[in-house]
């Protein structure tokens, strides 16, 4: 016999199912990857599973864009999207794919290094789900704001303590889904470790001379506007920093700590022959001191809380009412990549990579990121 509380249970259940359905549409929408328009330098688009077949068809497999010149030379790998909540990292890789044209050597670009991390975002951070740019033709392109870590749907549960496999170093349990604590990876590890292994395999198989991992950090973090270099990469990074100073771009050079394990600049330098560096720009939308976190903060980098923090001497970088825009952050990454490629030619004669078409820093500031994005062909629009 149907009782009164069964009626209320039915109503409550129906509302709950409707709410779950609405949430599902939003969450599942996060899994659809935006179109990337290959530029004039792209000669091939491969998958990371080409170097580590066990990744094929899974959440960790990701596109590898191969840009090569007519002249033989060295090889360079750019890792964008290691942390999908650091938008200048993904965007810098994207602008390389859509604009760069190597004259000599080969440039490999992975825009979504942790592809799984792009399929969700971090709860309780209040971050926007996406950010948009207006292109020169008036159209718009939107990109998702992801999470620092692999989606728990793809790798769950987290241990209380994460033990880095090759060193035994203990870290916080949630770092088990951070790919920049997983290198050099392992074949039978977690999804994150397997993706890290795939990238190390790519570096070994293609004899990558220089690997550049792109990041952003908060203004109160000491390592910001910096190049972090493995000891074998220090001479090359020093030359690049000098080149940036000549462009009036102030940047610090940090040695890769020997006791901080699992990161690209340590493990890829130790376990492969590549020269490994990591770049950090300054992004106030990631900081703990930030105010309202929305698309405007991600793009403009303007934040009154950080202005106050700077007045109190709490920051490692100047911060004023102009903020630190996405153009500034992407421009710094691209200028540094250009200088690193140039320095590679001095470090390894005959293994140089000459890259034309990289959007210049001043042009990015003046015209905006949207001016260097290609319109998405009508057939590829959602």
């Amino acid at each position, binding site marked *: 016999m149907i009782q009164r*509380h069964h009626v209320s249970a039915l109503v409550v259940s129906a509302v709950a199912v409707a709410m779950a359905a609405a949430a599902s549409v939003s969450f599942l929408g996060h899994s659809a990857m935006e179109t990337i328009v290959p530029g004039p330098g792209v000669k091939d688009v491969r998958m990371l599973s080409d170097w580590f077949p066990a990744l094929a068809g899974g959440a960790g497999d990701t596109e590898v864009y191969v840009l090569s010149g007519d002249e033989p030379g060295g090889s360079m790998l750019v890792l964008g999207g290691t942390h999908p909540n650091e938008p200048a990292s993904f965007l810098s890789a994207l602008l390389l794919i859509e604009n760069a044209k190597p004259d000599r050597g080969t440039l490999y670009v992975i825009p979504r290094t942790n592809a799984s991390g792009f399929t969700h975002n971090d709860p309780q951070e209040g971050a926007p789900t996406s950010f948009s740019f207006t292109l020169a033709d008036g159209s718009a392109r939107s990109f998702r704001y992801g999470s620092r870590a692999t989606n728990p749907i793809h790798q769950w549960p987290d241990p209380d303590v994460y033990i880095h496999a090759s060193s035994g170093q203990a870290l916080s349990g949630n770092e088990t889904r951070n790919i920049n604590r997983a290198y050099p990876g392992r074949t039978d590890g977690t999804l994150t470790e397997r993706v890290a292994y795939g990238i190390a395999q790519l570096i070994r198989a293609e004899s990558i001379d220089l690997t550049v991992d792109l990041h952003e950090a908060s203004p109160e973090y000491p390592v910001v506007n910096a190049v972090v270099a493995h000891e074998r990469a220090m001479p090359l990074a020093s030359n690049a920093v000098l080149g940036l100073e000549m462009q009036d771009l102030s940047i610090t050079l940090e040695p890769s700590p020997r006791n901080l394990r699992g990161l690209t600049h340590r493990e890829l330098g130790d376990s492969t022959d590549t020269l490994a560096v990591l770049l950090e720009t300054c992004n106030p939308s990631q900081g703990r001191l930030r105010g309202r976190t929305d698309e405007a903060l991600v793009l403009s980098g303007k934040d009154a809380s950080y202005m106050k923090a700077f007045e109190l001497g709490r920051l490692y970088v100047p911060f004023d009412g102009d903020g630190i825009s996405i153009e500034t952050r992407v421009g710094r990454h691209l200028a540094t990549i250009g200088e690193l490629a140039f320095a590679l030619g001095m470090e390894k004669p005959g293994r140089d990579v000459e890259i034309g078409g990289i959007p210049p820093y001043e042009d990015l500031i003046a015209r905006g990121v949207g001016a260097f994005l290609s319109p998405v062909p009508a057939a590829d629009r959602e």
Partner: protein
Amino acid sequence: MTYVYLAICAAVLLLTVWNLWTEKDWRKQCAAAMVAIPLLLRVLLIK
């Protein structure tokens, strides 16, 4: 390990739904429904 955790999650979801349908206080039914939503999304591998 992931499958073990998913099985635990599914079991808790079933108990929560059972509680929702046997509970007589509609406010506690609402509480059970709110608990069930994230469990359901995890079991279905949506979030």
